[in-house]
């Protein structure tokens, strides 16, 4: 593995860890939090899966929680010099 790749890997894990930390801290069923990451040329896409009853917890009133999580993720992406997208999957 070249050093550049390893940095890239680390960033993806960092995004994943970030979303995972936030989601797990907010839901009632942390064990059911699952994040799938895919990386393409543009950046990474993170798909967040939570238990049905926790959907509201990660979205929030008027989508405020989701919005805040995305803002924090975008700050992390800027730091890593990458693009990322958070999808909340039903």
């Amino acid at each position, binding site marked *: 593995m070249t050093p550049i790749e390893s940095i890239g890997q680390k960033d993806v894990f*960092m995004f994943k*860890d*970030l979303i995972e*930390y*936030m989601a797990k*801290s*907010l839901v009632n069923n942390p064990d059911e939090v699952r994040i799938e990451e895919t990386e393409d040329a543009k950046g990474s896409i993170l798909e967040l899966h939570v238990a049905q009853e926790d959907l509201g917890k990660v979205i*929030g009133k008027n989508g*405020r*929680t989701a*919005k*805040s*999580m995305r*803002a*924090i993720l975008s*700050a*992390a992406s*800027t*730091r*890593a010099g990458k693009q990322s997208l958070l999808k909340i999957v039903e």
Partner: protein
Amino acid sequence: MSEYFFQDKTSEKAIEKAEKELGLNKESLHIEVLEEKDKSLLGMKWGKICSIKVTIKPQSTGEASLEERVTKVENTAGIAEESLKKLLKLTDIQGDIELSETNDEIILNTNVNDDVEALFIGRRGKNLDAFQYIVNKIVEKKVNCKTKRVIIDCENYRARRIGRIEGMAHKAIMTVKESGEYYTFAPMKADERRIIHMTAKKEGFPTESQGEGIEKKVVIFPPNHI
């Protein structure tokens, strides 16, 4: 779980007896009235007798969780600081957190490296608000009861912003005074609009919020406006 049985003329008396005997008040006891029957001796009824079954409520765990909760509430600031630290680490933003507490607020003033300050604050404090919102949510969830509000600040950005908005309000008031016409601000967040309302009120200028949601903006009217 141990069960105790008590008898007396009435259920109230039986409960009193149980309280005395076990040295606990009835709030921590589970009381079940078994039967109330006539007491009889040689076929002659003379008064009643009531039997109750008493079990001690699992108050040990109840108290522990209460205690736990108290320590958690006391430690709200610690939880808030810890979660912000974690978030900053995961977003690769290095900085020191300075913690202070007032009666109803926990303030985490963060000093971050210059190169990430703009990013941490975001446009009009957008990212700062996002961190603040998430940290508040995490704290609420962990402490599981009403807590102090957590304010996340970055090198007193919020304090500076308040000063700047007050300045804007004063400037707008001057404009209204000179022109005699109303002045409309750009859309702002609730707490920012509040500052303008307060400042204008002090100067005796009526204000109003117009629009809905994120489009809400403050209008300052001349003093004689009805």
